[in-house]
């Protein structure tokens, strides 16, 4: 271990951390609706996943041993790209229509959604790419050895230290984590891997800068002084003489063409390329930018390939290490940091490929191999419901298997040559895909036979010989043929010896593949459904036709029942809460929400939506099988749907070319409108969501406020009423109390101070209540006088009793006036004079039940009256006496006067 090991390790981890951060940042932006991946430049750069470690390091190696033969690997794709607007656009439209998730899914959809076709395509992709994964891991680990343990110019010996230091395991774990986090983190049918695509774009720039940086360094900062200097030196010392004739690979035209063919197909049909090209594409318009940006990228990347190769050879580096010239040249000239940067570029190239390829293969294996294997039995419910975790396991297993492969056979012939062999495997998809989108007659049988035959031919003529050359089988197989049968020689099958092994393999696999594909397609008839799919692939626009004739079909199918079936079907793969939302969305999007009955065409649309969603998660073949096996369509409904389709097609009455032109026009228009609509829809949805949330909150607040206000009002009203009542009651009570108090006071004062007694006689009980000091008046002690009518009657002076009782009886019976004066006997036997005035109360039967009255003690008056009488009598007596005396005086005076007159002088005496 040295400083270089630690610094390179730290920088590698730092780089991986930066990539993680970028991916997370992009994913978060995408979650907020800021679509980073929806960019033509990002799309173009992601296509650079084509340039793996095999091309990054291997191009220089290839240039050393084969000269310009490294160029078809990049020139071929440029040629293919010329036709992308016609070809790739079709793929993308089909992908959008059928929601395909991988190349295997794409092929299976075209061929009657056949699970067999999908499974076969998956096997080809798996077998073809696993050694390629091993190659990438080998590149990462071996170049790490160079960069970490060869500092100081000792570049010619490449020790396998990193392998033993566990670097490989760490790399594998990082790749697994990255793939799971950003490739298969979710099981979302609408998912696009924004984070991963962003990272791919960044790694594309890094590897371009790194490679170009090394190129500049070699051309201008080593032994050379520019391109002209290299050219001059090369002219003086041709490469061929430097390498030695024995090491040179003969470049024939056939090989040249084979390389072109393989590269043309690889750029589109390698599973990872198909994924970034078709599956991750968000807009057809991005193709147009990618069509010139990506070839330009490859051109810039390759400008320095030959100069680096020549620089390495002229610098005396062994040609056997030509694959690592990109690292060893800067190291040899003491530029460790540039070499480290070049290593980071190589890591980007290898890592990007591993991640994308693994993600694609994991999707294919889970959807097209495992899910069909699990079938619909309840036994595998656990797997179906945990499809996501299953994919994670596949990712981990696949990368680990690649690593195991690398450890076991890392140095074998097979692994070194697997690049072109993998390309040849991808070529097997070409007839089925190209034929599928251009040839209506192509059918499932043709695809199955073609793919199967081509794969076997590829295996026998290309992969198997590499096993033999790796020493796993006897070498005589490729010298004399298996069992000595020369015409079965895998490298000269049927005696064809003019072709190099690669061209030979390509030739035979294509002959078998295309031959069987065409013959079987012509031999076997197409099913009606398959014909329909074929038309939609070749025309790509027929899908909108169905929607025209809705009105002509009667709505008679029970919506509730179909909804139930849809829920049951989706619940096999998604969580219950998710299922309910999905089903409601389908009905809402199809305008079926609230309808009790739907037509057969509407049911077909609903079925298509469900299948499309399932296809996004499980692949088209499994989705189709699941929908077919469900009870979504009864036999009668299937029959009617078939009739409806026939009617729609016949109703069109339009020439196919004219129809295609019209549909093209409208589809382009629709595409534009849809895009704008989607953008607007996203914004509107966000706004609506905000408004809805705000409204909900406001409504809740309003409801709460209303409730509170109502409660307050009710409560206030109640309280007001209660208050009023209480106030009134209090007022009344106060008034009554006051009145009563005044009355009582007055009554008490009157009763106590006056000589009146108020009485209340309860006639039925005979109780007689007295108000006033009755006891005192009658000479009893307090409360002694009995309160009964009998006691009153008994206390009455006997002479008056009869008369009073008679008057009382008369009052009670005849309601005559009752007003009496009588005498009461005091306790000491003295008499008291009372006046009594009262009135009775009568019930409805005219019976008196109560009597209230007042008695007044008039004893004092009576006594005063009696005394007055006595005084009057005395006065009368006195008066009479006085009068008598006066009369006597008058008589006396008269007598005196007579006597005086008789006596004399006639003068009366004054004294008298």
């Amino acid at each position, binding site marked *: 271990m040295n400083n270089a090991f630690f610094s390179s390790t730290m920088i590698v981890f730092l780089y991986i951390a930066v990539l993680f951060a970028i991916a997370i940042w992009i994913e978060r932006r995408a979650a907020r609706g800021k679509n980073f991946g929806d960019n*033509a430049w990002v799309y173009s750069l992601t296509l650079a996943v084509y340039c793996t470690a095999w091309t990054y390091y291997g191009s220089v190696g290839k240039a050393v041993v084969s*000269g*310009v033969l490294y*160029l*078809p690997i*990049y*020139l071929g794709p*440029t*040629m293919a*790209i*010329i*036709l992308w*607007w*016609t070809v790739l656009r079709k793929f993308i439209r089909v992908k959008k229509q059928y929601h395909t998730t991988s190349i295997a899914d794409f092929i299976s959809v075209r061929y009657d959604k056949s699970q067999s076709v999908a499974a076969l395509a998956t096997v080809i992709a798996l077998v073809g790419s696993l050694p390629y994964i091993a190659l990438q891991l080998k590149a990462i680990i071996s170049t790490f050895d160079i960069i970490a343990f060869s500092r100081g110019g000792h570049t010619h010996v490449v020790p396998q230290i990193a392998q033993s230091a566990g670097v490989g395991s760490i790399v594998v774990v990082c790749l697994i984590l990255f793939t799971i986090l950003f490739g298969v983190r979710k099981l979302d049918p609408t998912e696009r891997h924004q984070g991963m695509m962003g990272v791919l774009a960044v790694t594309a720039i890094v590897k371009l800068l790194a490679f170009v940086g090394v190129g500049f360094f070699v051309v201008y900062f080593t032994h050379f002084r520019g391109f002209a200097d290299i*050219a001059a030196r*090369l*002219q003086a010392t*041709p*490469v*061929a003489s430097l390498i030695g004739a024995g090491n*040179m690979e003969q*470049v024939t*035209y056939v090989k*040249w*063409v084979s390389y*072109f063919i393989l590269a043309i197909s690889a750029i589109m049909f390698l599973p990872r390329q198909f994924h970034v090209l078709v599956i991750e594409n968000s807009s*057809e*318009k991005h*193709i*147009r*930018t990618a*069509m*010139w940006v990506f*070839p*330009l990228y490859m*051109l810039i990347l*390759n*400008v320095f390939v*030959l100069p680096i190769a*020549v620089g390495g050879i002229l610098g005396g580096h062994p040609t056997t290490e030509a694959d690592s010239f990109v690292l060893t040249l800067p190291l040899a000239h003491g530029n460790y940091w540039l070499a480290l940067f070049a290593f980071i570029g190589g890591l980007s190239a290898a890592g990007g490929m591993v991640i994308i390829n693994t993600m694609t293969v994991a999707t294919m294996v889970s959807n097209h191999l495992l899910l069909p294997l699990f079938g619909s039995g309840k036994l595998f419910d656990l797997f179906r419901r945990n499809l996501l975790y299953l994919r994670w396991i596949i990712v981990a297993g696949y990368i680990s298997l690649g690593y195991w492969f690398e450890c076991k056979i890392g140095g074998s012939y097979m692994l070194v040559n697997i690049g072109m062999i993998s390309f040849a495997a991808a070529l097997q998809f070409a007839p089925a895909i190209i034929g599928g989108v251009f040839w209506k007659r192509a059918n499932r049988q043709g695809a199955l036979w073609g793919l199967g035959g081509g794969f076997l031919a590829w295996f026998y003529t290309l992969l198997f010989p590499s096993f033999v050359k790796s020493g796993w089988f006897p070498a005589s197989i490729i010298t004399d043929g298996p069992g000595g049968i020369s015409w079965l020689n895998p490298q000269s099958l049927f005696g064809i010896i003019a072709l190099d092994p690669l061209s030979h393999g390509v030739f035979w696999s294509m002959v078998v593949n295309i031959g069987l594909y065409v013959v079987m397609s012509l031999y076997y008839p197409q099913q009606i459904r398959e014909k329909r799919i074929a038309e939609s692939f070749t025309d790509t626009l027929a899908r909108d036709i169905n929607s025209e004739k809705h009105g002509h079909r009667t709505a008679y199918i029970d919506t509730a029942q179909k909804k139930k079936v849809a829920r049951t079907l989706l619940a096999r793969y998604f969580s219950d809460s998710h299922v309910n939302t999905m089903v409601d969305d389908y009905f809402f999007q199809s305008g079926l929400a609230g309808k009790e009955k739907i037509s057969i065409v509407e049911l077909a649309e609903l079925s298509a939506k469900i299948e499309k969603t399932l296809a996004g998660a499980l692949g088209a073949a499994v989705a189709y099988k699941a929908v077919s096996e469900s009870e979504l369509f009864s036999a009668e409904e299937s029959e009617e749907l078939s009739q409806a389709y026939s009617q729609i097609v016949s109703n069109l009455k339009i020439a196919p070319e004219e129809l295609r032109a019209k549909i*093209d026009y409208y589809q*382009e*228009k629709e595409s*534009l409108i849809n895009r704008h609509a989607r953008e607007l829809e996203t914004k509107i949805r966000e706004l609506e969501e905000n408004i809805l949330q705000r409204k909900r909150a406001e409504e809740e607040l309003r409801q709460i406020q209303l409730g509170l206000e109502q409660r307050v009002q009710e409560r206030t009203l109640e309280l007001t009423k209660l208050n009023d009542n209480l106030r009134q009651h209090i007022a009344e009570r106060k008034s009554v109390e006051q009145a009563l108090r005044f009355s009582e006071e007055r009554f008490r004062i009157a009763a106590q101070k006056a000589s009146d007694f108020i009485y209340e006689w309860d006639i039925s009980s005979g109780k007689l209540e007295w108000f006033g000091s009755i006891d005192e008046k009658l000479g009893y002690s307090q409360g002694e006088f009995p309160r009964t009518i009998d006691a009153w009657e008994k206390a009455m002076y006997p002479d008056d009793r009869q008369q009073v009782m008679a008057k009382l009886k008369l009052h009670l019976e005849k309601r005559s006036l009752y007003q009496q004066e009588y005498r009461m006997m005091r306790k000491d036997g003295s008499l008291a004079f009372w006046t009594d005035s009262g009135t009775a109360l009568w019930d409805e039967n005219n019976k008196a039940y109560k009597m209230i009255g007042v008695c007044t003690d008039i004893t004092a008056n009576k006594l005063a009256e009696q005394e007055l009488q006595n005084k009057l009598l005395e006065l009368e007596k006195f008066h009479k006496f006085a009068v008598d005396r006066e009369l006597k005086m008058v008589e006396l005076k008269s007598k005196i006067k007579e006597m005086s007159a008789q006596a004399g002088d006639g003068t009366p005496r004054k004294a008298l």
Partner: protein
Amino acid sequence: MKRILALVQSEAFAVCLFVAAIILCSAPFMITANIMEHLWFMNWYLFAVWGLLIAGIFLMTGGSREGDGSQE
């Protein structure tokens, strides 16, 4: 100008470009039997062809120009 543009952006032009690419990339083998003897020259010749193809594609697609993208 519009006619030229329409021609360049047609499917026919794409096919012509494709055929031209095949011919131009095959040319080295028509000129010499041993391509390795002229490695440096062949390399840059092919780069020139490559550059031309990219230029052709650029014209064909109209670069990154926004539009309906049709090639009719």
